[in-house]
C-alpha cells in the first residue's frame, strides 16, 4: 500500500510546494486520484482540524494548509470521477442581515471546504429570503449563520423562523456562530448547534450529518 503519510505531513507543515510535488509523484506512480484525496489530503486536513481545536496550530498556519489542500485538489480534479468528488455535505453560509463582518465566517467556510464540504459562501448582510433561496437551489444540508454584533444576533432567530415558515427546517441542520453567540442563545433560537471556533464548527458539521 502506498504511504500517504508524507502528503499529510507536508499539509500539516503548511508546505504547499512539497504537497504539490508529492501529489504529482504519487500520480506518476499510478496511485488513484481518489486515494490521494481521501488518504492523503483529507486525512491530513482532519489532523490539522484537530490540532487547530487543541490550539496546537496558529490559524494562519491552518489557512496555509487549507490553501495547499486547495491547490492539490485542483491537480486531482480532472482525474477524479464525478462520484469520487462527492462532497461530505452541502453547506450554505453567510453573515445575517445588517451585519457586515465576515472574517470569522470566511474562516469557517474555508475550514469546511478543506474538510470536503461543498460550501456556498453568500457573503455579508444576507436576508432570510436569500438564505432560503440558496438552501433550495443548492439542496443544502447545512445552514451556517454568522453575526458579530449583539444587535444583529436577533436576525439569526428571524432567519431560522423564516426557514421554519417556508417548511425547510427538516431539510437543513442550522449552525450559528460569532463572538457574542453562545450555546444558550443557539438553543433559545432553535439552532441545531453552536461552535465557538472554526475547528469545532467542522467537527460539529461532520457530526450532524
Amino acid at each position: 500500500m502506498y504511504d500517504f503519510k508524507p502528503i499529510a505531513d507536508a499539509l500539516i507543515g503548511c508546505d504547499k510546494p512539497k504537497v504539490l510535488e508529492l501529489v504529482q509523484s504519487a500520480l506518476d506512480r499510478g496511485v488513484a486520484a481518489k486515494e490521494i484525496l481521501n488518504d492523503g489530503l483529507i486525512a491530513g486536513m482532519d489532523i490539522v482540524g484537530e490540532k487547530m481545536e487543541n490550539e496546537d496550530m496558529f490559524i494562519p498556519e491552518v489557512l496555509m494548509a487549507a490553501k495547499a489542500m486547495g491547490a492539490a485538489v485542483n491537480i486531482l480534479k480532472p482525474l477524479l470521477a464525478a462520484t469520487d468528488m462527492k462532497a461530505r455535505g452541502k453547506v450554505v453560509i453567510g453573515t445575517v442581515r445588517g451585519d457586515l463582518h465576515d472574517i470569522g465566517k470566511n474562516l469557517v467556510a474555508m475550514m469546511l471546504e478543506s474538510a470536503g464540504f461543498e460550501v456556498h459562501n453568500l457573503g455579508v448582510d444576507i436576508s432570510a429570503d436569500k438564505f432560503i433561496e440558496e438552501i433550495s437551489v443548492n439542496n443544502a444540508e447545512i445552514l451556517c449563520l454568522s453575526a458579530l454584533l449583539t444587535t444583529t444576533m436577533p436576525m439569526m432567530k428571524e432567519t431560522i423562523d423564516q426557514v421554519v415558515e417556508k417548511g425547510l427546517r427538516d431539510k437543513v441542520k442550522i449552525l450559528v456562530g460569532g463572538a457574542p453567540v453562545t450555546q444558550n442563545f443557539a438553543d433559545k433560537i432553535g439552532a441545531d448547534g453552536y461552535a465557538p471556533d472554526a475547528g469545532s464548527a467542522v467537527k460539529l458539521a461532520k457530526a450532524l450529518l
Partner: protein
Amino acid sequence: MVLKGLSGGQYQPLSRGQIKTIHEASLTILERTGFSYESGLDDTLGMLKDAGIRVDHQRSRIFFPKGLVMEQAAKAPERVVLFSRDGKNDLDLSEDRVHMGTGGAAIKIIDLETGEARPSTLNDLYQLGRLVDQLDNVHFFLRPCIPTDISAEAYDVNVFYTCLKATGKHVMAGVNDVEGLNRVLDIAAMVAGGREKLRQRPLISVITSFAISPLKLDTQTTIIMQEAVRNHIPVALSCAPMAGSTSPITMAGTLAQIHAEQLAGVTICQLTNPGAPLLYGGIPGMANLTTMGYLGGAVECGMMNAAIHQLADYVKVPNYNSSGLTDAKVPDAQAGWEKATTSLLAAMGGSNYVHHAAGMLESMIAVAYEQFVMDDEIIGMCCKVLKGIEVDSEHLALDAIDSVGPGGNFMTSPHTLKYMRDEFFSGNGVTDRKSRDKWAREGSRDSWTRAREMVKKMLDKKEKSYIPNNVDRAIHEKYNILLS
C-alpha cells in the same frame, strides 16, 4: 485625593521620528489603498466627492488625498469637554490629560451570589451604574454590558435612560440606528433642560464604530456618526482591529492602519459638520492566533494603546482607547496583572479617555461586580503614578529633618501629620494590608471576597435617582422605559 485629569506622557513608546513615519504611512494607505464601502452610503459618497475625494464606484473604493485629510483633521477641536451631572466628574479631554472608566458591550456577568457567569440584564446595568457612581477613581460610565433581557429595538432608549438614572458621571454608549440616536438625544435634552443646554454641556456622548477593519465603512454606523456630528454631540470614532487578523501582525503596521482609519473618520465627520467635537477612537488590539478571538490582556495592548495616543496627539485630536482588559474568566491574579500592566501603560501614555478600564473579564465578553471595585483601585494607583513626586521646599522637608534630628523619628512630626493623608495613595479599602494574624482572624478573605462584600454594602445604600422626578415622569410618558 482627586486622581482625574492628571497628565500622562511619561511613557512614550514612539520617538518623534517614528510618529512621523507612521503618520506618513497612514496617509499613504488612505491615498493608495483607500477605504471600501457597501451599499446605502450614496449621500456620504456624494459629500466626499464634492470635497474632492476620489470615489471609484466600480471597485467600491474611496481614495483620500493627503492634503485634504490634514486640512480636515485640522478642523477637529483639540479639546473636548464631556460633562457630568454630579459637578465633580467633568472630563477635560485635551493634551495628555488622563481619564479612565468603564466600557464594553459584555453579554455576561458574574453573578454576585453564585459566582457563575450568566447573561447580563437591564437591572445589572442599573446596579453597575450605581456602583460606579460610588467609585471615585472610575471617571465616567460607558455602558459596560448589554441588557440581554430586553429586545434589541428597546436597547438605545433603555440603555441611556438607565445609565443616566444610575449615575451622575458622564454617560456614553452606542446606538443601533438613527431613530434610536434621535430618541436618545431627546431624552438627554430632557435631562439637560433643552437641546441647546445639551449642546453646550454634553452629558452624553456616542460611540460610533464606523469602520470595520481593515479599511471598510460600516453603512449604518457611518450614517449614525454623521447624524450625531450634525447634532454636535461628541462621538468616539471607535475602530478596533486585531493584529494578525484584521490588521497586520506587526505593531507598527497595526498602528499605521488604525491611524489611517481614524483619519478617514475624522475627515468624514469634519466634512459633515466642520468643528464638530469628536474623539479619535483607535483601539489597537490583538488576535489570539490559535482561535482568532480577541486578546485583551496582552502587554502589547498596553504598549500600542500608549502609542495610539501619541498618534492622536500628533494630529491634535483627543483620544478614546482601551486598557484593563484581561483574558481571565474570573477576578483572579491573571486579571490583576493584565489589568494593572495595560492600564498603567495607557495612563502613562497620556490617553485622554480610556474605556474598558473597569469591570471587564474574558476579554470583552463578561463583567463582574467585584471587578469594578478592584479596577477602581488599579486606576487610582495608575493615576497616582501620573501625579509624580513633588519636590519643593515643603516636600523636601529640610526643617522637619532638622527638627527631628539624627536618631529621632518622624511619627509625631507636624510635617507627617500635615502630609500623611495626601502623600500616599490610600485606596478604596479592597487592598489588604493587615497582619497575617488579623487577616486570618477576619476569615482569611481573598480580594474577590473582600470586593464582593464592598459591592454589597454599596448596592445596599439607598437608591438615588440622577433624573429629577418631573423629568423622569415625562420620559416615562413618552418612551417605553423597561427599568423597574
